[in-house]
């Protein structure tokens, strides 16, 4: 990699970005669900039950299976590892951020 200190042009100034870079790690992605099934992640917000019930009804009317919601206890926190593992193991489509 070029060392920025090698930039010998005395007419240059260097600005340092304050924004960290994302360093992606290897991950496996299933490009489409293995079966026609949707699972919602419920953040427990006040309007959550109503939205999920309506969405579930709309999907079932179209013949799509809806799994039991994965429930986060706190909307503002990251999913814990166990819940994330359950979402990753789901063979349908997992839908996040369905409410607020």
């Amino acid at each position, binding site marked *: 990699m070029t060392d920025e200190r*090698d930039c*010998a042009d*005395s007419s*240059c*100034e260097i600005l*340092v*970005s304050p924004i960290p870079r994302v360093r992606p790690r290897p991950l496996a992605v299933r490009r489409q669900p293995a079966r026609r099934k949707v699972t919602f992640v419920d953040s427990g917000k*006040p309007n959550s039950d109503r939205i999920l019930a309506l969405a579930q009804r709309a999907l079932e009317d179209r013949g799509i299976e809806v799994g039991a919601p994965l429930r986060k206890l706190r*909307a503002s*926190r990251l999913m814990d590892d166990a819940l994330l593992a359950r979402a990753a193991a789901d063979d349908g489509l997992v839908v996040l951020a369905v409410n607020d």
Partner: protein
Amino acid sequence: MTTLRGARASWQARSITARPLAAATALAPRDQRLLCYPRALSLIEDIEVCHERGWTDGLPVVPPYRPLVERMLASIAAGWDEVLGELPRQNIEVRGCEIAAAAVMAGCDPSYGPIVRAIADAVLDPAFNLNGVAVTTGGAAILVITSGSCAARFGLAHGANALGTATRSNATLGRFAAFVRRSCAVAAGSAEEFGAVGHPGRLGFCVAEHPSTTWTPYHTQFGLEPGALAITVHASEGPNSINNHYAETGEQLLETIADCVAHAGTTNFYYRYSGQVVVLAPEHMRVIGASFTRERAREFLLAHAVRSTDELCRLGRIPRAPDPTREVRPGTPRSPFARPEQLTFLEAGGPAGKFSAVIPLWVGNHSITRRVAA
């Protein structure tokens, strides 16, 4: 009058004649954090570059020139590529150079290094949940509270207008914390913020406690010894002012404060995870301190800052239906706090005026206290 845009066009025309811009571009390092610009650009142009790249909060910044960043890096005792924190699940590592650049941009003096470092360490603590603070619909800001002899050492204002001073150290340290939120959690992460209304403290919110206090310093409420220099970071909503000019007893004042702590709209009635900071200015502190220890004042507020659960249900503030995570108990009084330590007291403000304030905290994280290197 030559406009900035006109000046820039004029400069570009000259530079193309004198030295093709491509030549300067070719000298730019591959590391995309580093941008080379011809020195002929004015300071104003460099500030514009910062705006254009989305690095600012809308106000002008000190451009993070490498020599300034290196000087700040030394003052925070960090290495250029040293990882100071990581945002969980987002694969974002925050390094010394980025923290130092944020401090330079905020306008921090290098002599603030130890307190800048303590703020960075606290904000990047996973328990602070910086991602959540950035994206919440609650529109939280990062509130930095300094305590102990920080005010004297770093020139922090703690008297008049303590919650919004025009002093460089308060203004830039609060802005620095906000920059870390913006650059690490938003620019590198979520790309958007979603606060429904937010509040002005999101530009910067740094409050210093008086160096000499009636009760022990603020940080002792988080387990540090009285003699420590410390900062505490909270995610906060906007402050509410408390006015009481006629009270003659601590009970009268605390009852007034309790009414604000437990107003029907306070977020914490719903979640009860977080807390509130009661800011006592000297005139109120004198009256309360005459008859209350901090522990007794907390007990008094906990007893009085309650509302009827049934009323809160009627207003739609908490669920009517049984909900084990919300612990709704019909027919009982409801406190916005699940634990006494969620309520803390801060002594700050000007000597004249019978005012205090309550700062409600956001509900999705833990407050973090860190020592400031002596």
